[in-house]
């Protein structure tokens, strides 16, 4: 049996698995945000950064190979994860107290897990466009982390291809495939996988805000 070392634990690896898949199968957690089983690994958030034989790599995209030595829970990598989370918070506008996703948000949960207490960097307070045009679904771009899960889900699961990513650098932005650029002019529905899959509060179903009381939410 082929094995791989994850923080010293010898874990079996199957043909074609990534380091992330090996770790999940062995119940060894590697923090991650843009990776979601069932979708092709994206590799953009970098939260799953590990050290493989001394080199940084994203666990979700890296093929697992016999004899690899993977570090996950080290002080150096904790610092990297913490910084990445802070970066995601400062580049957007994350007011958790006013966010319907709070308590069920993967970004927030990851930040709790990593013990993020402060932003450290200067927040940018960007001015991003909100789209409330659709009767059932809302886009709050302030919270988008560009994981492209909605892009893939809408294209590959819903068969609608409603979302895309445009721009470059810090001007990267989520766009909608309609002439007006508005969600109202698409055939999105609140039941779409694209809506459900958003890890943060960037795509929300209207009329459901704060339905679940504090204490009963996904990660409470």
């Amino acid at each position, binding site marked *: 049996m082929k094995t791989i070392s994850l923080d010293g634990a010898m874990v079996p690896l199957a043909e074609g698995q990534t380091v992330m898949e090996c770790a999940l199968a062995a119940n060894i957690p590697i923090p991650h945000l843009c990776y979601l089983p069932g979708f092709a690994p994206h590799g953009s958030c970098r939260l799953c950064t590990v050290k493989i034989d001394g080199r940084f790599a994203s666990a979700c995209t890296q093929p697992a190979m016999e004899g690899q030595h993977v570090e996950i829970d080290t002080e150096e990598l904790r610092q990297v994860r913490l910084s990445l989370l802070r970066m995601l918070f400062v580049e957007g506008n994350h*007011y*958790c107290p006013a966010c319907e996703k709070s308590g069920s948000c993967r970004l927030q949960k990851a930040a709790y897990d990593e013990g*993020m207490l402060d932003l450290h960097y200067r*927040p940018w*307070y960007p001015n991003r466009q909100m789209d409330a045009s659709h009767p059932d679904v809302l886009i709050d771009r302030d919270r988008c982390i560009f994981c492209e899960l909605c892009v893939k889900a809408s294209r590959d699961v819903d068969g609608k291809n409603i979302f895309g990513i445009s721009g470059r650098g810090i001007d990267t932005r989520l766009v909608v495939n309609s002439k007006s650029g508005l969600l109202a002019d698409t055939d999105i529905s609140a039941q779409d996988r694209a809506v459900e899959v958003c890890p943060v509060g960037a795509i929300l179903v209207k009329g459901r805000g704060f339905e679940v009381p*504090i204490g009963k939410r996904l990660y409470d």
Partner: protein
Amino acid sequence: MIRLATCSLAGCFGCHMSFLDMDEKFLALVERVEFDRSPFTDIKSVGKCDIGLVEGGLCNEENLAALKEFRENCSILVAVGACAINGGIPAMRNRFSMDECLAEAYLDGIGIENPQIPADPELPVLLKKVCPVHEAVRIDYFLPGCPPPAGAFEVLLEALLKGEKPVLPEKLIHYD
């Protein structure tokens, strides 16, 4: 005796309310610390202190001056609550211009009588953007939450009074 000061800048006093939610433990605390400037004492300027707790971010010149005074006088300065840490709800005005904000608040908003923008020279000048306290001064510890739970204040102060570095257990870390 350990001296403790607290203040609310651009915040809603919610963090202070949560602090008081310690209930009977607060009485025990008062035995061990002496409050300097704080809404609890109504002392208006801060003297030399061991610990300063700052609620709220910076939205005007007065906030900035108060924060600097706290930094100068407190050996340990703690940013308390979402507003102090990332600007919080008040920072949601940052996407609008000052004119838009003032117009909405004093001229065009719902239920405004005798619309006029206040211009009393006593009023502090507003900053262009609301910003967190760590942008202006060095902060030693952060207590997230909107507001942070009473338990978080307990853990923080217990550690600081013992001269230790506070470590919040995960269940006391909340952003909302």
